[in-house]
């Protein structure tokens, strides 16, 4: 009898394991109350707490500090020797919009048309994209997923990397993307002559100004008619919040010349909420950016210099130089081709290795992007009342060998699995080996 019970028990365990493996592609998260105890806590905004506790309940951080009483029914996770950090935010992704880069049938980040701000990234984010678990188990919990392509390629969305519908994933922020007319070459394969390049830039700027003029007109008609008689102009409707000064415009500009032109354009058009993105040559015009008070999301950090005669480490040093000029700087990975957004902490780490203050670099991937996107009430630091979106690791999160032990997103404990870890488990000791026995 006992044997049978044992056998049944064993079967159950086996079955569970099996079921678990079948589910393994997207294993389930766990929601509840958790206490992360004995932890070092990097709050980001309120210093470092040693030997402290973070309480998680109802999706929120309910307490942070030392000497905290743990309520009954709370699952205790001993974090001795470990550190708690707020989840990292990558502002340079197309997560959920791309599965296999070279296969257009699996990519959804670039719609036809030069001026299509009404194309919303959030619509096409695939909550089951394979890259999502791969990203979050490395502590990157939140991502700005951006469309790319023409002048106004669409509207980006900030998402948390857990959920089954776009609504569940959405953090609330959305921003219109503007690829500011670009005078730089898109890579060495771009063999346009100087004149061609100049003409193309001028034409694009002309187009931009025309679009903007129409948007302003639309705004006037819209306000005059109280939104009733402005007509169906979806792209203008998408731009309306930006014209009104309520929505954010994410302006991608990289060459020094283009950054200057973008700043001038923003000033001329009196656009209230602007973020500069890319900003590869920001260091050349740092004083101008600082003067404008416009925040910056820079990256990729792991890049070649933009000019042949630039110092070899210029791209690594850029973020630190911008910070030194007292610009508000967030760091993004922009590793779209390889879907390697998990490398975000290494981009920050390289910025530190090449001159940026470490604390600032940590902020640049947590609280600063949260502030830029207006979600610092929820994300970016370990504070009571904020969303329980955080991770636990065994060392400096920028350091390459550091292991991420726990990830929580909106209070959900995330299974530390992805397709890549599963392949490891299966193939480290493959069975059968060379012979089929």
């Amino acid at each position, binding site marked *: 009898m006992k044997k049978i019970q044992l056998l049944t028990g064993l079967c159950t365990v086996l079955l569970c394991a099996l079921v678990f493996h079948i589910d393994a592609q997207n294993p389930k998260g766990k929601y509840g109350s958790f206490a992360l105890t004995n932890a070092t806590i990097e709050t980001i905004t309120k210093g470092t707490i040693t030997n402290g506790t973070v309480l998680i309940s109802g999706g929120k951080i309910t307490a942070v500090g030392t000497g905290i009483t743990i309520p009954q029914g709370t699952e205790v996770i001993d974090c001795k020797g470990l550190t708690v950090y707020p989840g990292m935010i990558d502002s340079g992704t197309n997560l959920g919009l791309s599965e296999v880069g070279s296969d257009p049938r699996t990519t959804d980040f670039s719609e036809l048309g030069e001026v299509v701000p009404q194309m919303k990234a959030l619509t096409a984010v695939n909550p089951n994209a394979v890259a999502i678990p791969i990203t979050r188990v490395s502590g990157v919990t939140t991502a700005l997923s951006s469309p790319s392509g023409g002048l106004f390629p669409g509207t980006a969305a900030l998402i948390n990397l857990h959920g089954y519908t776009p609504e569940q994933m959405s953090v609330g922020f959305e921003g219109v993307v503007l690829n500011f007319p670009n005078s730089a070459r898109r890579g060495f394969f771009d*063999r*346009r*002559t100087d004149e*061609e390049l100049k*003409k193309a830039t001028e*034409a694009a700027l002309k187009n931009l100004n025309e679009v903007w003029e129409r948007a302003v007109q639309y705004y006037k008609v819209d306000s005059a008619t109280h939104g009733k008689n402005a007509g169906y102009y979806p792209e203008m409707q998408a731009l309306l919040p930006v014209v009104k000064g309520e929505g954010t415009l994410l302006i991608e500009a990289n060459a020094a010349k283009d950054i200057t032109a973008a700043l001038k354009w923003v000033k001329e058009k009196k656009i209230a909420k602007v973020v500069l993105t890319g900003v590869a040559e920001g260091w050349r015009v740092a004083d101008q950016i600082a003067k404008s008070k416009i925040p910056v999301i820079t990256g990729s950090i792991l890049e070649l210099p933009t000019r042949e005669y630039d110092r070899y480490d210029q791209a690594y040093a850029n973020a630190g130089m911008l910070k030194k000029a007292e610009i508000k700087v967030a760091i993004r990975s922009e590793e779209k081709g390889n879907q390697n957004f998990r490398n975000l902490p290494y981009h920050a780490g390289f910025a530190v290795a090449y001159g940026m203050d470490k604390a600032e670099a940590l902020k640049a991937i947590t609280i600063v992007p949260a502030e830029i996107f207006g979600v610092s009430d929820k994300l970016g630091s370990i504070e009571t009342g904020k969303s329980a979106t955080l991770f636990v690791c065994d060392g400096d999160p920028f350091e390459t060998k550091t292991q991420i032990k726990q990830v929580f997103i909106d209070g959900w404990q995330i299974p530390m699995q992805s397709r890549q870890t599963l392949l490891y488990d299966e193939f480290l000791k493959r069975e059968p080996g060379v012979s089929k026995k």
Partner: protein
Amino acid sequence: MIKYFYNKRLRPLMVASLLWPAMSWAQQGQALEEKSLIAPVGRAYAITNATIVQGPGRKIEKGTVVMKDGLITAVGIGVSVPPEAIIIKADSMFVYAGFIDGLSRTGVTKPKEEKEKEKVKDPGNPPAERAGITPQNDVRNWLNPNDKSVEELRNLGFTVSQVVPYGNFLPGSAAIVLLGGKSPDDMVLVNNSALYSELSGAQNVYPNTVMAVMAKFRELYRNASLTKSYQSVYAANRNSLPRPENDRILESFYPVIDQRIPVLFKSEKVMETQRVFTLKNDLGFSLLIGDVKEGWPIIPKIKSSGAKVFLSLDLPEEVKKDEKKTDKPGKDVKKDSTKNEEPKKEKIKTPLDLEKEALEKKKKDAIASYTSQPSEFTKAGVTYGFSAMSAKTKDIQANLRRMIKAGLTEDAALAGLTTNPAQLLGLSDRMGTVDNGKMANLVVSYKPYFDEKSKVRYVFVDGALYKMETKEAKKDDKVSAKGNWSYSTETPQGTATGKLVIKEEKGSYSGTITNSFTGKEVEIKNVELDGKKLSFTFQYDNSGATLNVEVSVDIDGNNFEGTMTAGPNGSFPVKATKDPKF
């Protein structure tokens, strides 16, 4: 008979010939000397009372050169002038041996590009023509003494060129030609002077890259060696041996393998030059390199290679003076800028200003390196000639002066134009100096040739006289390209129309063109107006692929007509009228 025919027909035109550009019609009688443009071979000439620069460092003041039957028959002071000689009074003028250009396509007609190249079924194994492997081609097939380029180069004092066919990789054999004559054969001094090659690949088919070009070169060469030696075995005793296959391509290498002729490579760039050396070292042929622009950093390597060298007459453009002085008001910065740093309003230089200065300096230094190339070669003791291949004819004289300013002695420059190329091409017995017995190839200039604003007055090629127009083009005859033109062109895709705007500034033209296909406006380049002939190029953006379009038209008042050539897409007729409002 032919001569008679020409003379008779042309007599009524004599007076009108004043208006003709300096070219090609036979003349008669001493009285007409000043007006004569070319004299028939066989005439005797004497250039008197001139400064004769017989060769580098050899000068005769107030001397006389006598020519007869295409040869120099006397040089010196007080030499007797035969009574039949036409006397050219060259008081205060300067006489030099005719210049020799080591590599160009002067007088070589560019074959018409096929309209739509047929797609090759297997790009890895294309027909030899498509692959650019036509070493059996003879440049004489494309020679044309009336080609504009012949006259243009001759007007600068060049009398001989080594010319090669158009094409990539192995376009054919080179020939040394006179820049004059009536027929292609008339021009040729030395046929098959070299096997010509370029390290450039075929479009979209094998060999496409430099590496494949080099691999294929090796393979062809080694195969040629093998077939050649088998052919000699076969020739010795044909009994019981299979007949060797005939292969014109491989046979073209035989004279190279026998060291009877060299391989002539265009090698502008520093890497290209070294790659040519790699092939030479692998295969052991004798080598001529032409149009060398970046030889200056590798002079020892060039010297030890044993290759014969022709340096390019092309130079990178100088940085314009007004570009350099940025935003400073001119007056108080006059003084020696290194000493005086006092100007009160001196802006504090930002790191970016300093960077810009350093970059500008580096660019200037780079240009200087190119410009001083010939003098560096002279210093290193390398014998070199010059080549006109990629130089704009109108820049050549100025470029020579820039080289001299950068340290080249006038003697060395002259040697590079005369004695050296004669030696390198094996022509020293015939040309290179003004000496008895040499071919009557001469240049006569108003001032010393390398002086600022020196102009060539006469050129003798093989004893034939060419007289240069010296006066400014007649104003009343002036054709103007300036203005706004509306054009239309018939292409396989239908009619395209657009606006062409041409501006003129100090004799140089620029402008823009639009077209109804793309709606884009692009800059036009290489705008040149020569008489009534207007030519320019522009880049046509064909959904990502840019196409270089060449336009050549004849202007007639407010209209022009001509052709537009769009690379592989062929040529189309183009017409335009000028907007009268301009």
